[in-house]
Structures are given as C-alpha cells and as structure tokens.
C-alpha cells in the first residue's frame, strides 16, 4: 500500500507540475490549486501518507477539464495515470449480519477514492423494510465511514423516529458495536 501511494503520488505530482505551467496562465483558480499541490507534492512525495494522495487526485480531476489548449495532452496523460492505478476497481465486502438482516456492500474505487457504493444484499423481511432499505442503506455506508473516522460514540441531534433511526449516523455506530 505504501509503495502504491508513493507511486501514485509521484505520478500525480509530476502531472501536477506539468499542468501548473499551462493552467496558471489561463485560469486563476486552477492555477492556484495546481501550484499549491505541486509544492506539497514535491516535498511529500517520498514519505507522505494517503491524505495527500487523496487531495492530489482531486486536483487532477479539477484541472483536467480546464478548457485550455493543453487539455488534450493533459487528459491523455492523466488517463494513463489513473487507469494504471492498481488500487482502482470494484470490491465486494463480506455479507455482514446486522440486526435487520444480512447486508453486503460493493464499492468502486477510482484514483484512490470511493466513487460509488452500491448495496448488493439487503434484508427484505417485509415491505416496510424494503421501502426503508432502498434509500437508507447507501446513505448508511457513507455515514459508517464518516463515523469511524471521527471516532464518535453517540450522536446528539434533533429527535428521530424508529424509522428515521435506520438511516441515522447513530445506527451506523451501533452496528459497529452490536
């Protein structure tokens, strides 16, 4: 993972350096972003962890569609950079038993970021469950990720009902501890 990150970082920072020359003349906002990333990327490319890789893959995404004369060369090189990324792909998690039934999630990773999450298995015990799950579970995934990263034990918020609980952040935390 570390090697992949370093590799990704060096590719991205090289790309960003390439970009910063063109974009800084045509668009002020992307110019600033690219310049900032070029300096941090250059300094951190040897040892810095995933946090930088994430922001930098963001910045290539934003600078990619800049309508400049250099866009053709830019998109083609960034395309080769991301398509060759060994962390890209679609991953299916194990089915997890929750108190509502079995849940299985599939995520799509692109450029080191989760770009899509889909639920491949949800509990369908009755019609109400079905209704709730169809929109609740995908939201729950993102919430679960966020709750874990923040290390939250309980959530205080405006009152929710039993139905509202299922898609609440509290529910994601509870499921991690049940």
């Amino acid at each position, binding site marked *: 993972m570390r090697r992949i990150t370093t590799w990704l970082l060096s590719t991205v920072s090289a790309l960003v350096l390439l970009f910063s020359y063109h974009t800084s003349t045509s668009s002020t906002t992307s110019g600033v972003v690219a310049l900032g990333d070029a300096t941090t990327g250059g300094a951190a490319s040897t040892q810095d962890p995933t946090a930088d890789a994430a922001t930098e893959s963001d910045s290539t995404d934003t600078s990619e569609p800049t309508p400049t004369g250099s866009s053709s060369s830019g998109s083609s090189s960034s395309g080769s950079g991301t398509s060759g990324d060994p962390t890209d792909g679609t991953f299916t998690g194990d089915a997890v038993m929750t108190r509502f039934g079995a849940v299985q999630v599939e995520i799509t990773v692109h450029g080191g970021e989760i770009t899509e999450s889909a639920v491949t298995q949800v509990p369908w015990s009755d019609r109400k469950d079905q209704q709730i799950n169809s929109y609740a579970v995908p939201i729950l995934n993102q919430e679960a990720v966020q709750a874990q990263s923040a290390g939250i034990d309980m*959530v*205080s918020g405006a009152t929710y009902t039993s139905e509202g609980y299922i898609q*609440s952040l509290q529910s994601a935390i509870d499921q991690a501890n049940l």
Partner: protein
Amino acid sequence: MITAEIPVTPAAPPPPVLARRAWVEHVMGTAVSIHVRAVEPTRPDLEAAVARAYAHLRRVDEVLSTWRADSHLLRLQHGETDEAHAWVSDVAELSLEAESRTDGLFRAWRSRPGGRTVFDPTGLVKGWAVAGAGAHLDVVPEIAWSIGAGGDVAVGVGPGPSAAAPSWRIGIADPRQPGRVADVVTLRRGAVATSGAAERGGHVVDPRTGTPVRRSGSVTVVGPDLTWADIWATAAWVDQGTARRLMAARDPQYRLIAL
C-alpha cells in the same frame, strides 16, 4: 459534583482493557441505544441493569405516551380513569418548574382551538425518562455507560476507580448535512440534548404565539442532567437569546451550542 481523581504514579498498574457492548431497542417511538464499556461486558449484573433501563423506558411509555390511547396520561385526559401512576403528577410538577425556570419558553399546556387546554409533556418526557434509565446503570460498578435516545444522550460512570473511567465522544449532528457531525463533545458524566428542525420538522411550538418554530439549524445543550438539558434545548429552540441569558443566570453549569 466533586470527582476524586486518583493521582497517577509511575508504579500504577496499566489501566484495564475495556471492551464495549451495544444494545438497541425501539421504545417510545424511537430507537434507544445503550453502549457500555467494561472489562467484561457480558457480566450478568450488567445485562440485568440494561434490561431494567429498557424496562423503565417501556413503563414510562405506558404511563406518559401521547401516542398510545391506552397510556395513563391519555386515559386520564379522556376521562376514562381517575387513577394514574404517580409519574403523571411527577411530570406535571416538573413541567411547572420548567415553565417558570425558562420564563415560559417551555410550556407543557397548550390551548386547543375549542378552548380546551391539554397537557402535553412530550417536550420533557424523553429526557426525563432517559435520565431515569441511566440511574439504573449508574449503580453498576466499574462500567461506563451511555444512552442515546433519538438524539438525546446521557452518559455516566458506575461506582469504582474513576481514573480508569473512559469518556464518551458525542457528535452533534450537522443540521444542514444529514449524516454529518458538526461538533464533538467529550463527556464522562453528563448529558447532551439537541432541539432542531432537522428530523421532525416544526414539532416545537412557541408557547408565546402557539405557532410552530420554523427555522433551520439546531441548538444543543450540554450539562449534568438530561432532564434539564432537554428542557433548556427546547427553550433555546424557541428563543435562543433569552434562553441563553436565563440559563447563564439560573443553570450556569449548562452550556449552549447553536448550529
């Protein structure tokens, strides 16, 4: 409250490794989560206390629900009975106290169009009930507990060496971005209550005008007791400026977070 901290010396044994266990039950129209940290969270006395905490909440619902036609409160109001659990008068008394302490920003009695006045203590029953459920966990030795009840949170520590007791990180839901946390409060003992429009739109009525409070955002009150944190949060949702001023003067151990 004075908490005696045991001074940590270099020879002190390492703190015990605490495991965590969670329960969820649907009661009072919402989901109530109980989390406990203990060296051995499968202890029978601990399980029994959690069961008592849930039983307490179910009993409160039987007595004071405004949704269940068979609750003592509604049967009393509909003239179907003259007898009621003592909790009905306890909560009525608490409602009166809340009304005077908040200068009427909290009010459990409201006039219906027909000129009839109804007693609806919903605004404080949940906080009061969860505080009562927490009392069942507060007597269990060497545990840390937290209860989350549909957005209101109470946490505490059972008897035992307090230096080893962990604190809980309570996220305050971002009222503008569902599923996001806007702020975090770290507590070992105490309560966090939030009022807002995020989940059940406009369910708090301004007692001065009789109209629902329509506003975005939320207000959170952090303090020692969930009963009063809940009351002050409701009052602050009605009128943040006044509630903040009253709280500082009358209940200075509570603080307000407005989002």
